[in-house]
Structure formats: C-alpha cells, structure tokens
C-alpha cells in the first residue's frame, strides 16, 4: 500500500499524487463492494425462487447448470437470466418522454448503490466512516423514489402512472415511521455513526443488542423496510392483478432489469441495516470461545441472510394489503407507536442514574 502511494507521488507530484492515490483506493473499495453486492442480488433472486418453491411444494429452477455438473442444477439460472436481459431490445413507447424514460432506471439504482458507502462490514472495514452515517443512509434511500415517479410519468401510460403514485405515497408515509424508529436507535447509542452504533451494543450476549429494549421499533423498522422496498405484502405499486406491473410496465430488457437490481439491492440494504442497528452487526451472539472464533464479517452475513429469509417468507405467506389498509397501518398505527416510544425512551434516559440502577435485570440503560 505504502509502496503504491509512493509510486503515485513520484509520478504525479506531491499534491496531485496523494489526491489521485485516495481516488484510486476509493474506486477499488467501491468495486469491492458493488461487485459482490450485484452477485448477491443475482443469487438472492435464485434463493427467492427456490425458497418460495419449496414453501409451495414445488422444485423451482432446476435446469441451468455450469459445465454440465449435475449437482449444480439451477445455479446457472441467474446468469442465464442476466444474459437474456442484456440481449433483449429496450422498447421505448411512442408517447414516452425518451430522456426521462432512460433516466428513471439510472435514478433508481444510483441511490440504492450509493447508500452502501457508509455501511461498516467489520470494525475496520468501511468505505466512508462519516459521523452522520445514519442520516446519509436515510437521505439516500429517500432519493430512490424519484426513479419510480419519473418512470411512471415518462412511460405515458395510465397503469404506470397509477403505480408510480401509489408507490410515492406509500414510500413517503413509511419513511416517517422508519425515521422515527431510527431516532430511537440513535437515542440509545448516542451516535449517528454506524460503527459506533454497533459498538454500543457490545456486551456478553445477544441480550445486549438493541432488539430487546427497542423491540417494537425493531418490528416497525423491519415492516417499514418491506414497505419501502415495495415488496409483498406491500407491493401495490406493482399489483399485477390491478395495474399489470405498475411503474415498470413499459420497460423491457436491461432497463427493466436495472429496476429489479435496485429493488433487490435495497432489500439487502434494509436487511443489513436491521442487522447493524438492532441485531448487533458483526458481534457474535454469545461472547464465548466457539462463537468468537468465527470472524465478525461471517456473523454479519448470517444475520443479513436471516433477515432476507423473512422477506422471502413474507412474500410466500401474506396476501397483498389493500391500499387504504397500507395507509392506515403507516399513519395511524406505526407513527403513534414510534412517537410514544421516543418519549418513553427519553424519559428513561433522563432518570437519575441511581433510579435506573434499581430496574430489575437492566443491562441497557
């Protein structure tokens, strides 16, 4: 590393060499995050199809394989799907606004990938260790909605526009509940830095993680996350039975796949955030010998996979919500609960130390 830095300084001079070196290292980090993420997205679609298939007593994709190896049957499916999507023509409808039509998928995937910049994967491994990490993530995820709205409007189709409006209203309302749940987390950890939030959950076991003192917030965050990513049972934005496929009904080929990639990488992002904020991130469930030997990164991956399994399970289990029920759940149930919990948490934190020590079984405050 130092040697490469010296080479940069020699070639480009002292001032520019350092700048270009940091640019080059950051680009390397970005690729190191984005490429595994996109692979993860590809295999998440495969996992989804397989898991839902088994839940419905089917087999799922079981044909495409690598080099004819029989026990890898089905594992080539995501690659085959990607190749198919790249080959297909991107049809632009006649009445569509061409520029915005092409811009919409780009605007969807951009924030979905940009939010990953501040995610810590282990105590040291983080691309941008900024103080306001949590706020940054909120800001980035709230920008994802533009792609959906613009796609709906630019397609010049009633179904697409209806889907976009549903999605926009839903995402804006659930963002509030999500933000309030995150306020509780930052009150507990007294920091907006994701690494500090995980370190604040350090203790002897999984009892120290924030999912116990903030249990309602944990559930609300998870459910709002499902709603934010427009996944079943909150997928009225797509609602095949009513508005065909919602905002991306006129998209084909790679343009459609980019929406798909954004949706799945947002799913992985929500799962990662849930495991970082409520399930102790890279901390092992019990601070003892066999568990501490496994590296923290593996624990984080296991937790992400656990939460993602819930996403798939929800989709296989629940019927789609009706639109007014979604709005009622967001505004009339989640937001009041989060507001009450914020006040309650503030009261507990303001109690004198001696009084907090008298709580039975207290390890959090």
């Amino acid at each position, binding site marked *: 590393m130092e040697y490469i830095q010296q080479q940069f300084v020699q070639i480009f001079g002292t001032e520019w060499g350092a700048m270009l070196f940091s640019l080059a290292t950051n680009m390397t980090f970005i690729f190191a995050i984005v490429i595994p993420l996109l692979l993860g997205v590809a295999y998440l679609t495969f996992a989804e199809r397989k898991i839902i298939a088994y839940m419905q007593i089917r087999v799922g994709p079981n044909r495409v394989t690598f080099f004819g190896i029989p026990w890898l049957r089905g594992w080539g499916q995501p690659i085959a799907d990607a190749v198919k999507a790249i080959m297909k023509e991107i049809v632009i409808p006649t009445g569509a606004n061409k520029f915005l039509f092409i811009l919409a998928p780009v605007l969807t995937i951009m924030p979905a990938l940009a939010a990953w910049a501040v995610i810590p994967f282990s105590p040291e491994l983080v691309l941008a260790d900024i103080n306001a990490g949590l706020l940054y993530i909120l*800001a980035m995820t709230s920008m994802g909605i533009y792609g959906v709205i613009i796609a709906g409007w630019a397609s010049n189709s009633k179904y697409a526009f209806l889907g976009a409006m549903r999605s926009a209203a839903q995402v*804006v309302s659930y963002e509030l509940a999500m933000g309030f749940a995150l306020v509780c987390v930052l009150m507990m950890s007294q920091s*907006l830095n994701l690494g500090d939030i995980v370190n604040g959950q350090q203790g002897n076991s999984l009892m120290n993680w924030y999912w116990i003192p903030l249990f309602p917030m944990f559930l609300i965050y998870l459910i709002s996350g499902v709603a934010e990513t427009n996944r079943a049972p909150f997928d009225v934005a797509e609602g095949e039975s009513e508005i065909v496929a919602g905002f991306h009904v006129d998209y084909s080929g790679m343009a459609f796949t980019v929406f798909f990639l954004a949706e799945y990488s947002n799913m992985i992002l929500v799962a990662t955030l849930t495991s970082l904020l409520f399930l102790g991130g890279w901390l092992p469930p019990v601070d003892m010998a066999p568990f501490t030997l496994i590296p923290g990164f593996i624990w984080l991956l296991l937790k992400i996979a656990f939460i993602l399994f819930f996403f798939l399970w929800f989709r296989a289990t629940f019927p789609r919500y009706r639109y007014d029920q979604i709005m009622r759940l967001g505004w009339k149930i989640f937001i009041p609960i989060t507001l009450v919990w914020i006040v309650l948490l503030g009261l507990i934190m303001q109690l004198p130390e001696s009084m907090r020590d008298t709580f039975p079984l207290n390890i959090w405050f």
Partner: protein
Amino acid sequence: MNFQDIIFYIFAAILVASALGVITARNPVYSALLLVLAFVTCAGLWLLLEAEFLAITLVLVYVGAVMVLFLFVVMMLDINLDQLREGFWRWFPFGAIIALVMVAEIAMVLMGKHFGLEEMPTPEPQAADYSNTKELGRLIYTEYVYAFELAAVLLLVAMVAAIALTLRHREDKKSPNPSRQVKVRKEDRIRVVAMPSEKKE
C-alpha cells in the same frame, strides 16, 4: 487550484445552470426535476463548507419529501402556459424588486472590503472527528431553545390549519373503514348451525 476548488467550481456551475433551467424550462416536470438537481448540488457545496448535517438534511427533507410531493402535483396538473404568461407583467415589478435586493446582497458579499467583512474572519477548519450534528443539537436545545420551540409551534399551527381547512366530512361517500374491518371477528359475521346429518332411506 487544488482538488477542492475544482469540485467547488463543478458544483457551482451545475447549480447555476440547473437554477437557470428551473425558471426557463417549458415543461413544469423538467423544472421540478432541475430544482431537485439544484438542491443536490447545493448540498454538495454545503459539504465542502463542513456543514454535513445541514447538507444531508437538505437532501433528506427537500429532495426526499418536499419535492416528491411537488412533482406529484406537477405531474397531475394540465398546465396552460398562456394563462400563466398573462400575469407576467402584473407581477414584474414585484419580481424586479426582489431581484434587486438579491443583487445588492450579493454585491455586499463580493465587495466585502467596503462593508467591513474583515471583522468576520473565515472560520478555522475543524478536526476530522468534530461532530457537526452534536454541536448543532447542543446549541438548539440550550442557547436557542425558545426560538427553536417557537419555530416548532409555528409549524404545528400551520399543519393543523392546513388540515382544518381541507378536511371535509362527506356523508354521501361510501368508503370502507379499515379499523372496523380489522376488528371484525368470526362470531360477528357467521353463525354455525348444528345440523344433524340426514339418514338415508
């Protein structure tokens, strides 16, 4: 010119261009989207000024929420440009006065020497671990607590007023009430009747 200056000029150029686009674009949807771009580049400029909390909040509040609703409304409007132009000369003096005030303000900043700008020295750059958010929170809840509470109450009043002005209860409308629907239990709707099975002849 170093790296930061280059970034500043790029952001500033995009900001000026997009702000000009907001008022010149013919399509209102383009105007709204260019305003979004202006907000984002403005947030970038604030990041260069080490105001990361304000920059992220700008994106979160204006880009993430306010402009989404704006775009929502603009997309559904069928705007007639001729009708809008009619009012142009009526409002022109008003706009011109505001523009003049802004020009004067910018002139005062640019010609700071004549207005005693050197009495306000440029702030020192802060260390990397300096938390903007924490400092802002401390000031809001200690020194400026009354101003902050007043602003909060003002917003609350505006919100309540907006709801009170637009909320109408219509009696002739038939819509389901989800709360009541969710509360329904099996016993409310169906009655299980025990029927002895009939005997075969």
